[in-house]
């Protein structure tokens, strides 16, 4: 049982390390450029996993306020919310939203990087007719 608690309390962190290492390995050791790009994607998501794991909170609900559905009477929402909202909201009941915000940005950065990397890969292919790094290097050495 002790092992299980350790496993549960750390599993996410270990998983993020494994994923990160998979990505890093692909980026360093793989020969194919698109493979490297795939590795890069995995590498970036590993960090996202790490951050989201930081944000997780035992026994809390998702970071959208339960009483957010204020009376639907013509939009004067704020006063209704301030009326009972602030008093009722307890930080311990909601998952930490900050890492989520950060990770939204990280995902966006990830997809942007992916797009640019793929564009570059297409250009490389047009130039050399292959995506294998060793073949490209051979060609460079010959030419």
């Amino acid at each position, binding site marked *: 049982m002790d092992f299980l608690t350790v496993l549960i309390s750390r599993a996410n962190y270990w998983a993020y390390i494994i994923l990160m290492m998979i990505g890093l390995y692909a980026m360093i050791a793989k020969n194919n450029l698109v493979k490297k790009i795939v590795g890069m994607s995995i590498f970036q998501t590993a960090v996202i996993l790490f951050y989201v794991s930081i944000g997780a909170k035992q026994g809390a609900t998702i970071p959208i306020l339960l009483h957010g559905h204020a009376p*639907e*009477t*013509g*939009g004067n929402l704020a006063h209704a919310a301030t009326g009972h909202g602030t008093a009722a909201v307890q930080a311990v009941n909601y998952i930490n939203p900050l890492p989520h915000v950060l990770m939204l940005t990280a995902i966006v950065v990830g997809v942007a990087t992916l797009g640019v990397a793929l564009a570059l890969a297409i250009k490389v292919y047009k130039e050399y007719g292959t995506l294998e790094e060793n073949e490209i290097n051979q060609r460079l050495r010959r030419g």
Partner: protein
Amino acid sequence: MKLQQRKSSFVISFFILLLFWVVFSGRFDLFHLSLGMISCAIVAWFVSDLSIPNPRPMGILRLWFNFFLYFPWLIWQILLANFHVMALVLSPNMMERIDPHILRFRSRIRDELGLVTFANSITLTPGTITVHISAYGDLSVHAIDKDSAAALPGEMEARVARIFGE
């Protein structure tokens, strides 16, 4: 496309989309409804020349009505066929019982949407998958065994044809 057609197409899509908006949104205050109106208008304008090729308000209503009548029957067929394939998959001597083959026939449905509905219905019923469909209604269907293939085109074609008024 003519402007008149486009206008009516716009109106029809607008109301259909608004219905969906309301279902999605679930908020009925003025602010969100007006947002919905704007959104639906934008989308309807954007799609007015492609989603509904020849708009006839009554026709569309009848189509939907017929479609909802067809739906339970289809579900029932799917359910039956599902159990059939389920049994096939789970049976120990599966390799003997299956007999994949390709079936070719010509449907009498001419309406494009009808053909698509028919093809998708065929695909949805387990045991048969539409492989290819031509504009004239030539279908090739992959069937997993003889029983699944036997029902085609059969009743399903008739019902689909009825929806589209043929």
